[in-house]
């Protein structure tokens, strides 16, 4: 297509590139800085973007290995970062698997079946999803306190409680999957039902295999949401050994015990896998963000 171009286009193009690169430099500066800080000596030292005497001190501590300094003193790791990371991953994996399972079956019913109260339930879910759980933390705490007296693995200060609490946030995932199911022609399932398959079989053997991409997206979205969840975990978990990364990480930056270098290494170590995973999946995630839920 022949587009009408103004004359000064070349000059503008250069300006655009320059502007974009400048902006990116500004945006990426904090992230580069953290990587640089993680290789610096000590927790207070300041220096250039490229440290003059790079050291692995903070990295060693972040990985849980005691570090021997040049003068022979041994520094113990301040916090069990790897354990926190493992807690986060464990909770997020189980939560997102449950969320995926339950929201898929729900989305199937919403997409394919007719039943009483369908529209109000769907809309109600969207509305209630906007209420932040931070505001009902007192009630959530009381709920798990009660549950824990009868079912110990669901009590306060257990991972079970955090996992189960995450099941409140399925509405957006249901909407996303429902939107995808509706884009798939129902005739195949109908044919299977005519041949005598039950509704469940039609869903499980026909629709589900065709929906693997969206299920992957929802799983990853749920996983990232769970890993970064802060308020509920901060109230439900207490022991240092049971904290998730999101709750534990801030302990590095208390004014009384300011471990800037150690934090930097721990942050890069734990943030990098999630960042890379997100970037790798960004295309599908963006599709999920715009396709599901609130459609214009």
């Amino acid at each position, binding site marked *: 297509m022949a587009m009408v171009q103004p004359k000064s*286009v070349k000059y503008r193009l250069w300006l655009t590139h320059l502007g974009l690169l400048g902006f990116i430099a500004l945006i990426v500066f904090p992230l580069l800085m953290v990587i640089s800080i993680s290789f610096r000596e000590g927790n207070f030292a300041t220096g250039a973007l490229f440290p003059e005497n790079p050291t692995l001190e903070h990295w060693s501590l972040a990985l849980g290995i005691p570090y021997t300094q040049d003068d022979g003193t041994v520094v113990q790791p301040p916090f069990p970062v790897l354990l926190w990371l493992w807690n986060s991953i464990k909770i997020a994996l189980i939560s997102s698997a449950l969320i995926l399972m339950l929201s898929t079956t729900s989305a199937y019913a919403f997409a394919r079946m007719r039943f009483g109260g369908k529209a109000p339930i769907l809309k109600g879910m969207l509305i209630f999803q906007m209420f932040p759980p931070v505001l009902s933390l007192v009630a959530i705490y009381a709920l798990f306190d009660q549950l824990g007296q009868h079912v110990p693995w669901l009590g306060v200060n257990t991972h079970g409680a955090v996992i189960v609490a995450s099941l409140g946030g399925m509405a957006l995932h249901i909407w996303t999957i429902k939107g995808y199911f509706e884009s798939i022609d129902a005739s195949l399932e109908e044919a299977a039902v005519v041949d005598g398959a039950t509704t469940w079989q039609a869903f499980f053997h026909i629709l589900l295999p065709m929906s693997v991409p969206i299920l992957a997206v929802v799983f990853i979205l749920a996983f990232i949401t769970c890993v970064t969840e802060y308020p509920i975990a901060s109230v439900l978990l207490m022991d240092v050994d049971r904290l998730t990364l999101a709750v534990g990480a801030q302990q590095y930056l208390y004014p009384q015990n300011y471990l800037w270098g150690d934090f930097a290494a721990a942050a890069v170590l*734990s943030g990098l896998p999630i960042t890379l995973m997100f970037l790798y999946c960004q295309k599908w995630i963006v599709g999920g963000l715009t396709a599901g839920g609130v459609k214009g």
Partner: protein
Amino acid sequence: MNARAELPSPAMMSRSWTLHPTLKTGLRWLVWLTFNAFALYLVVALYAQRQLAFALLGLVVTGLASYVFINRRAYAHRYIYPAVAGMLVFVIFPLLYTVGIGFTNYSGSNLLSQEQVQQYHLNQTFLAGERYRFTLHASPEGDRVRIDKGEQGVFVSEPLTGEPDPQTPLAMRPASEVELGEALPLRDVIKRRNELDQRVLAGPGGDLLRMYGLREFAAAQPLYRLAEDGALISNKTGERLVPDLERGFYVDEQGEIVPPGFSVFVGMDNFAKVITDPSIRGPFLQIFVWTVAFAGLTVVFTLAVGLVLANLLQWELVRGKPFYRVMLILPYAVPAFISILVFRGLFNQNFGEINLLLDTLFGIRPDWFSDPTLARSMILIVNTWLGYPYMLLLCMGLLQAIPKDHYEASAMDGATPLDNLLRITLPQLIKPLMPLLIASFAFNFNNFVLITLLTRGGPDIIGATTPAGTTDLLVSYTYRIAFQDSGQNFALAAAIATMIFMLVGAMAWLNLKLSKVKV
């Protein structure tokens, strides 16, 4: 009769490996019965502990489950039941419960129920009689306490086994009936002091003895007895304690309260306090204004940055788009709790890299964390950094939908890029964007994690009786009232939360109307 019955259908073929129908039905009923038995046990146990709200929740959830999984007509509901139940238990119930707390005086000082407080007072004892020396002895059945009551004789308690319980006293028998070993040294008594403190011994006459110091047991009497009208009468002084159902405390004859308090229904008191008490109303209004400003400005800034970038990336002549795209959404990919803490360190007034840079370049070191205006600017900068990639992604998607020939026509008329942006792009984007902008506003209105991890609400507002900071949002303010050490005023927090619920509900409703969701 039925032609289809003769055809080998998938269901019939699979019958060879599925369970026999009656067995399957039996199994289903078995599962249903066990589930219900367990659920009913839980409900009854909660009811017995007077946790009516929780018992009711259990009843509703299990009742719905039974209905849905037994009734054939509710077949479709079986699929949605787990999600709906999850929402009911972890979103809607806590919401209602919080609203309920808002009408009580539930707080750190009024934590228990009235029955619990009454029981607490009835468990109090005072020294009312002789003191007797005791010794601890080992015996084959367990350690026993030997008490020398002088002229009345020497007595030995039952073995001290199991958890100590002040409600069930250990009986004592004359020493002659029991074989005892040597007395244990005092250090063993010291070691078990906490346990012994909880033990109550009952003499043959029914008199109760409790430990008094390390060497003696003494006759202890309950401090209060229950009168028929619900008052507590002191056995020591004869004074009456009357429950004050307005304040949630027992009150003595001078009108002084006797802690601990219990939670009572106080109507609109908490809401009235927010509106009338100047030391709460002032900070509340200030925080409310800042919350609205913060959420609004965040939406404007992130949208502005995202829209401009999306327009630049949309230009066909720009090369290297995949690179730009990945770099530009990088802030979105890093977990928020990490990047917020990174900024907290970088903005640190003393050793932060940002102040070092500003110091070398311009010779200034702004007080990012102690000056309210600077703290607010910092929060907006950080939140724009965190939030613009989302807007960028949304705008990039929506820009595809604008027909190219609009720009073609405007180029013919000699329009500048700015004209294009303001006259063509923005008017066409704003309608589909509106619900997303409202959602973003609502999200930032309640952006608890950002404030908590970055400033914790500080610097503090001077003259506030509740923990309140100049950068606190309503949510973090509520959280601090409820959970910060000096606070624990759950009821006030719940009342403010209820107000926020109404605002959020209005936003959610507006959002739903504007986005015209098709079900």
